[in-house]
């Protein structure tokens, strides 16, 4: 019985080990790497990815997938910038509208998936193109934000000794992270998400609100992607319709590398954070190296994702978690 329980944790343990090994490995090669400043930069540079990946964690835990994440980041980012700069809205107002739009699109996708029993990937793939189109429709050019109020948001930071500044976006990320852990582990909704991913048929027969949960998961992911878009806009001080290309893949990779099973039902929000950090380490390594080009990041992430997917397959085959594959017709 002990062995079986260990199996469940293998992906998460593997994730932590990979993160540690990578961090130390790169640290040994580049002495400047293991500084606190670089560590803080992991969070600053990847706050938006982390937030979106947390939304993705819930979706994948529920047994679904959301491919619209990257486009949603672009759309809400460009929308925020547009509303502030071109429409003269108050930044707070603009942010609220963006978050509302993201949640709404997520909600609609959830409804399409639930009520019409459509495959999540095709619905969210459509959402991906829809959002990208909307983003380009608003503006093809990057919209820089000069609004002083917004600038003051961006400049909000806690200064630590050693003149290390931790900007607001890092706190937003950490706040989302803590809230997500709370939701996942201490609310009925969170547990229903796990149950849905573990066995949607059982969840239905146990009387859980399957439909509501499923729709809420996509709405939540939409909301968090929109928040990621806002954070990205704060990070770059601009909204750009071509940002976030392929980001859905990075988000999925963070979740899967973080030990969440693609089939749903098993995983941890904390794992996703480590998954994001692993990608941050790889990216920083490539920057440190200087001779490697940025596209190596994509290849490396693809490779990591592949390895973890294969690891999951072997674990689930070994422990023979049989899950009903057919949908319920009642």
């Amino acid at each position: 019985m002990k062995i079986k329980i260990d199996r469940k944790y293998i992906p998460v343990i593997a994730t932590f080990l990979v993160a540690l090994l990578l961090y130390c490995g790169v640290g040994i090669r580049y002495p400047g790497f293991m500084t606190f400043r670089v560590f803080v930069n992991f969070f600053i540079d990847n706050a938006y990815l982390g937030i979106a990946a947390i939304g993705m964690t819930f979706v994948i835990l529920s047994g679904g997938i959301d491919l619209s994440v990257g486009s949603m980041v672009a759309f809400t980012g460009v929308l925020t910038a547009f509303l502030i700069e071109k429409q003269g809205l108050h930044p707070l107002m603009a942010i609220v509208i963006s978050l509302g739009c993201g949640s709404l699109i997520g909600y609609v996708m959830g409804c399409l998936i639930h009520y019409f029993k459509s495959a999540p990937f095709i619905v969210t793939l459509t959402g991906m193109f829809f959002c990208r189109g909307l983003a380009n429709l608003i503006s093809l050019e990057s919209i820089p934000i000069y609004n002083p109020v917004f600038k003051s948001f961006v400049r909000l930071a806690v200064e630590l000794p050693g003149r290390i500044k931790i900007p607001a976006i890092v706190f937003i990320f950490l706040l989302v992270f803590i809230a997500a852990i709370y939701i996942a582990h201490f609310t009925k909704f969170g547990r229903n998400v796990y149950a849905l991913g573990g066995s949607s048929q059982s969840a239905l027969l146990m009387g859980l609100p399957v439909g509501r949960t499923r729709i809420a998961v996509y709405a939540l992911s939409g909301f968090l992607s929109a928040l990621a878009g806002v954070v990205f806009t704060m990070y770059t001080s601009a909204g750009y319709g071509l940002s976030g290309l392929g980001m859905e893949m990075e988000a999925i990779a963070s979740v899967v590398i973080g030990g969440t099973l693609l089939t749903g039902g098993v995983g941890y929000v904390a794992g996703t954070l480590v998954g994001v950090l692993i990608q941050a380490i790889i990216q920083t390594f490539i920057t440190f190296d200087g001779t490697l080009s940025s596209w190596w990041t994509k290849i490396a992430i693809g490779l990591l994702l592949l390895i973890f997917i294969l690891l999951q397959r072997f674990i689930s085959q070994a422990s023979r978690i049989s899950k009903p594959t057919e949908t319920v017709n009642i």
Partner: protein
Amino acid sequence: MSETTPILSVRGISKSFPGVKALAGVDFNLYQGEVHALMGENGAGKSTLIKLLTGVYERDQGQIFLEGKEIRPHSPNHAQEMGISTVYQEVNLVPTLSVAENIFLGRQPLRFGAIQWQKMKTGAEAALQRLNLNLDVKQQLSSYSIAVQQMVAIARALDISAKILILDEPTSSLDSNEVAQLFKVVRKLKKDGLGIIFVTHFLDQVYEISDRITVLRNGQLVGEFETGALPRIELIKKMIGREFEAFNAQDDKRESSAEIDKKQFMKVERLSKKGAVVPFDLSLHIGEVLGLAGLLGSGRTEIARLLFGIDKADHGRIFLDNRQVAFFSPRKAIAFGFGFCPEDRKTSGIIEELSVKENIILALQAKKGWLHTISRKTQEEIAATYIRTLNIATPNADQKVKNLSGGNQQKAIVARWLASNPRFLILDEPTRGIDIGAKAEIQKLILSLSNEGMSILFISSELNEVTRCAHRVVVLRDRRKITELTADQIDEQVIMHTIAEG
């Protein structure tokens, strides 16, 4: 057993589905503190009755009374709220969550909106204690055996409030130790005054645990009996009963196996698979119809799957024409001249979206490979031939097979195999759920094929069918080959006795 009014009482309940009358005016009574076995073969209406009680289906006619009050459950939840809980063979819990969570899912103890894990843990332990079970409730459910998982499901049901507990084939995937463990719990619950409905195919278990038995057949009530007063043989008779004679196949069947070509076609030695069937021997002659008789879950389908290479056997050898062969895929089995009409027509037999013609030529085409395409003309000829000889009722060969009736779909699958010209055909319940006329035709076909030299393994729950068609009958019980009957021994009474007593 209490002699007062029943806790659950069903009066004249009926339910129809398109083309089938699943239940027709059935009565059923359950008292407090009794275990009531619900028996019947496939299509008897057991599961329909249970689904009506648990609100999965809505009844067409009739009434259900719970403690004297009429109820109308409209969903499993609703039924559960009223005190009717069900535990299924396939545990309907979430395997990836902990035991404690599974017991409290959807009704976790909250404090300021946050789940109280500690309280949930102690609550779960208490709920399991009621069944005299001590488990580490923080462990993942899937780390426990199916039996324990079922008991967790029972614990959940009781904790939600159950007056009536329905156990729907809970023992099908349990070994004998686990069954004993489960029965201990059932006895305790009985003592606590619950009404328990027990659905199973295992006769031993019925006689071990139940107080009374209700038998259904073809959607109708056969009767309600005290378990002690109903001998096994009578129970089997009541379950299997008799179809009226549609034709007299005995005339066509060659009287003794002496007439059958003495040449052996296949020999199976000590073939076995854990959890499916214990080691068995089997032999089959050319042109022989070998019947497999046994109740559902006795291992008959499992044997068919092993022979056809769908499942891999753990041990044992198969000889064809005295040469040992090994195949672990249907593809290889087909190459040796095998054919297999599976029990579940819809999920593993027909290809719904394809036409009747395409369904018929599929196996032959697969055997030939994709490059050796059967010409359109030949395809049409083959289809026409089998539509004619098997009397498949279809407007034309290009009709989608899903638009055909069950019997005609079955014939299309048989045609698929006949077209591939097999030496050996496995027919698993080929006549299930099809009308009498089609049944008779398929039985006739089996005999004429055997006359032409094809070896056939014939599986059916209808004993009269087996006795009519088979030259030799292998009787199975509890995944074990009990005996083999030949010639004059092939008789419904004898088979029933064998299944009952072993």
